[in-house]
């Protein structure tokens, strides 16, 4: 395997919890480390070839270690909490359409509103009659 081919597997290896040449070179073919549900897969044959490469290529071994540190940093990032009052503001927004429609009706110009009101009165009168 070339350096580029080996490095193309680094993400999957790290998702499978394999971070050293020894770890990469052991274990049966499996979809991931115990408890891993990422969907990461590196075939056992590839893992053996990668382990052999890492044992002799210090640059790739260094690259894998640096990538592992990068991921460790990412995984240590604290989640960001939604701002206080967020839920209330969402609930206010989803309930707003009714009040908006009412407001629109109230400010509708007379030349639009009056004919509609007249039509409503006629409709009600017919209904009563």
């Amino acid at each position, binding site marked *: 395997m070339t350096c580029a081919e080996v*490095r*193309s597997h*680094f*993400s*999957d290896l*790290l*998702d499978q919890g394999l971070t050293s040449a020894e770890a990469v070179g052991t274990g049966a073919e499996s979809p991931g480390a115990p408890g891993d*549900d*990422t*969907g*990461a897969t590196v075939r056992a044959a590839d893992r053996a070839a990668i382990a052999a490469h890492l044992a002799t290529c210090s640059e790739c071994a*260094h*690259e894998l*270690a*640096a*990538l592992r*540190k*990068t*991921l460790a*940093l*990412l*995984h*240590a*990032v*604290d*989640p*960001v*909490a*939604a*701002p206080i009052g*967020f*839920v209330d*503001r*969402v*609930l206010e*927004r*989803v309930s707003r359409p009714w009040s908006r429609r009412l407001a629109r009706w109230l400010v509708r110009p007379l030349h639009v509103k009056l004919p509609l009101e007249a039509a409503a009165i006629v409709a009600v009168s017919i209904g009563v009659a």
Partner: protein
Amino acid sequence: VRERPADPPSLLARLRAGDPAAFEDLVRAYQHRVFSVAVRMLGSRAEAEEIAQEVFVRVHRSIGGFRGDAALSTWLYAITSRLCLTHLASPRRRVPHHGEEVLVRLRDDRSDPPSTLERREVERLLHRAIAELPDDRRIVLVLRDLEGLAYEEIAEALDLEVGTVKSRLHRARMELRERLEKVTG
């Protein structure tokens, strides 16, 4: 990788049944996850709130049509990702906000913690490195490494092949590793 809380089991059934309290429960259960993705993608709390609110407004509007083929959380991540990417691509979007405020905070659970100054510097570098990734790679990295989604879930949320998710994630991680050379060696 971070553990994600599972979807509350009866929430979808309650939403579909029109339980008036169910929507509020949904917003409470997912607000932080939705906001977190938005803030990582947009780099601004104000814009993230705008988009996160819009996510829930759309959910409210379309919950009746949600078939439940995917998990509720995957659906929410899908809407959030799509809105963020559309917003980022909008020509009307204001100047990018990344860099104004460092929105990355690191947990410190090591036995030999670095000084506050060192940690702030790492947080600043990491914030900038994430912000400078291309949008289509950043979203995959955020969903995988910050939100803890599996490849399949990301593929479903972004409507991509799993292979595309893997290659974008790999490139994003390698780019990040290069940008963090100073910290990771």
